[in-house]
């Protein structure tokens, strides 16, 4: 500055400097003044630093709880007057901060998975320190911005594969159900380490895939998603079993049985379970061991109405008149009954059909011919909920894949025919089918994929409920082969099993049996129920007299 004064004096006294030269001198002095101070940067600290520049959150499922918040420490220089923490993107629900001296703890809370659904969500947190922009601090200028990248992965969940039982060394079509499939680019489906064949992404909740021929074993279902970090949570296991070859046999009941309400074949455990009215209600379970059929066990369950295996086969679902009870499929140990909410006093639970997403539809009935509400069981929540849809004493039958359920309605006092109703698991919708009838005592039957249905034991329907043909009125029980090309009818007049080729369209006329009736080892008794093993090799027929095991006729 002394130099400056000298220059000014010289310029004033002698007037030797021209205007431009003096201006240049002033400019040079001004600039030199700026750089002549403590301009080594030591005194100034507008810098902001963060302890982490990236964060990662993950949730195993869209319905999982939100991951724990994470904290980032921010340190800022002593000249920073204001700190702004801004963010964009859906991954972050909230950011809070606490300041302590020249540092702050920034806590980043991820959004709830249920609010986002599955997928990968990106957010950016920008932390900027602002400092005075002028000498009087009438405005602020930005210092450096520290960016924190937030990646939030909410994984899809593989919930079920249906049917969960497959036959060894035979490829098959299955339906994989879950949540969040559409949010990731799925490249393939694996069964254990074996790649699936063709697959189709049907919706965010459904993938259809063909599994290859697999040796017997258990195969966890997985999806190949390159963009997904880690392994998906999978609750779906495909159980591949060797085909069975039981000899024809009559199995006596250990207790007197007046009515068999339902029978099912638990292929995974080589067991047959009957829901009966024995002693006021009981489950009777037969297991086929190394030495043949073992002595049955009896598990009381008062007023049992129907039974079914859960989608994953991990529970036996039984309904009584007013509750659903889950049983261990091996020990038949019962869990706490789940009461049907809002069930009116004169209504009762009637029948159950399991669908492929770990849920089941339960019809209700009354002593009159009137409609009553349907209930929905959700396995994941172990809950029962009443639906707005009501049917008249309906009996359901689900496809082997659980992709749809057909309902036939009515009682002996019903006048006129009632519409057949079809439920689609994929859409969750009930639709009225272009068929009307009043159900009789013969349970409806459907094949694996829903290409064929037999209602009232006689009417064979094809796609779009076209009546293809009829079975004899003497049919007492009927099942369809998994491919829908054969119907196996227990015919009381014929005294055995009659086989029909229902792949043909008889345009509503009667089907002719393929060969003579195959006699049963014994008479199953009145009001028989019938089922077929998943490999189509064995028929099981249970009436009020005994349980009949019958190899499927090779026709």
């Amino acid at each position, binding site marked *: 500055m002394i130099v400056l004064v000298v220059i000014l004096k010289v310029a004033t006294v002698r007037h030797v400097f021209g*205007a431009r030269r003096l201006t240049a001198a*002033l400019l040079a002095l001004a600039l030199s003044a700026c750089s002549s101070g403590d301009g080594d940067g030591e*005194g100034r600290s507008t810098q902001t630093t963060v302890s982490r520049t990236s964060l990662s959150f993950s949730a195993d499922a869209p319905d999982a709880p939100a991951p724990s918040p994470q904290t980032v420490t921010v340190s800022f220089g002593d000249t920073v007057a204001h*700190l702004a923490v*801004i963010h*964009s993107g859906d991954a972050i629900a909230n950011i809070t901060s606490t300041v302590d001296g020249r540092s702050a703890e920034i806590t980043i809370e991820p959004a709830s998975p249920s609010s986002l659904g599955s997928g990968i969500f990106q957010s950016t947190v920008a932390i900027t320190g602002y400092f005075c922009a002028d000498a009087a601090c*009438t405005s*602020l200028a*930005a210092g450096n*911005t520290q960016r924190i990248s937030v990646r939030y992965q909410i994984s899809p969940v593989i919930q079920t594969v249906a049917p969960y039982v497959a036959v060894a060394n035979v490829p098959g079509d299955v339906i994989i159900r879950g949540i969040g499939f559409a949010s990731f680019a799925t490249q393939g489906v694996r069964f254990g380490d074996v790649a699936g064949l063709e697959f189709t992404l049907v919706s965010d909740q459904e993938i259809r895939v063909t599994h290859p021929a697999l040796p017997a074993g258990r195969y966890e279902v997985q999806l190949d998603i390159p963009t997904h970090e880690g392994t998906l949570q999978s609750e779906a296991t495909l159980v591949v079993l060797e085909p069975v070859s039981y000899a024809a046999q009559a199995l006596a009941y250990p207790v007197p049985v007046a009515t068999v309400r339902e029978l099912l074949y638990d292929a995974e455990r080589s067991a047959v379970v009957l829901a009966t009215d024995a002693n006021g209600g009981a489950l009777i379970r037969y297991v086929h061991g190394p030495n043949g059929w073992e002595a049955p066990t009896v598990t009381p369950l008062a007023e049992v109405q129907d039974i079914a295996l859960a989608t994953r086969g991990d529970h036996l679902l039984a309904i009584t008149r007013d509750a659903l009870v889950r049983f261990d499929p091996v020990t038949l140990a019962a869990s706490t009954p789940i009461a049907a909410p809002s069930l009116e006093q004169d209504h009762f639970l009637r029948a159950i059909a399991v669908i492929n997403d770990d849920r089941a539809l339960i019809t209700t009935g009354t002593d009159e011919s009137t409609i009553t509400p349907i209930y929905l069981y959700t396995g994941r929540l172990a809950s029962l909920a009443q639906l707005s849809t009501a049917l008249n004493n309906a009996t359901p039958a689900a496809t082997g894949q659980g992709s749809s359920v057909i309902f036939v309605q009515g009682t002996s006092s019903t006048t006129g025919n009632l519409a057949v109703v079809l439920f689609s698991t994929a859409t969750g919708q009930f639709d009225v089918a272009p068929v009307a009838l009043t159900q009789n005592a013969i349970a409806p039957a459907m094949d694996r994929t829903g290409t064929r249905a037999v209602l009232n034991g006689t009417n064979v329907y094809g796609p779009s409920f076209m009546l293809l043909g009829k079975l004899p009125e003497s049919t007492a029980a009927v099942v369809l082969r998994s491919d829908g090309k054969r119907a196996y009818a227990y015919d009381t007049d014929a005294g055995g099993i009659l086989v029909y080729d229902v792949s043909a369209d008889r345009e509503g006329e009667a089907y002719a049996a393929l060969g003579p009736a195959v006699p049963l080892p014994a008479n199953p008794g009145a009001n028989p129920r019938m089922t077929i093993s998943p490999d189509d090799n064995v028929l099981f027929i249970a009436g009020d007299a005994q349980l009949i095991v019958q190899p499927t006729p090779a026709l």
Partner: protein
Amino acid sequence: MTARFSAIALLIGSVLASLATAHAQSRAVESLHFEADFESTDSDSSGSTSNGTLGLNLRSTIPLGSLFGTSLSAGYSETRIRTRRVVENEDGTLPGVRPSCNFDNLNGELGVFARRPTLGRIAVSYGVGRLSADCSQPSFFLPSGDDSMSTDHYTVAAELYWRNFTLGASRTTVSLEDAPEIETTTVTGSWYPLDSLRVSVFGNDLYDEDTYGIELEHQPQFLGDGFGIHLSYANTDSEPRTRTVSLGLTYYFGRRVPLLVRDRQYR
């Protein structure tokens, strides 16, 4: 720092000596002067946010006898933080809604000065201000811990007039509530190539970093010497580098005089 104090002391001493020995001539402030200034400022920090500010300032200068004058000023400005750049994805897309963040400032200043229009001016002033933030997401002023902060400052300044040049220096001390004081020395050199045009270069050492810039102010004669337009550019040598561009329009009430005269006899 000592060098700067010495520079300002020398300048002030020179002005005082000149004022004391000068013959009676023009008054410090010829008459009451009032001006309104509307200014738009864009501040861009590399790799960080940029700000856009709109401000309105009102200033008046009042004569106090022949040697002294007093100045009053008040201003309001609102700053909008442009946040998109720091939160967008690498591909330039913005996930979700762009967060918003605004600052506003209300300030006032009172000053007293002594001036000889042919020699120079010395001044002291005191001002207060309040900065507030309005952000959609967490933000806070560190001295106060909440969304507003009070400031106050005092300034000692001196100017030397020589022909159509002005050399000025000032020292400002600002307090941000409980935070340590910040001291800034500013040096300005101005040249009036025309009576209606001022070219200034300036520099300061705010935060001990170099900020330097240039300002042009023009008072077009075809507007009757009632309007002034000013444009400035400043750059701060720091990391990140901050560049500031301002454009303003000033309306002068009262006497219509050339800019050089206004600066030395009215403002």
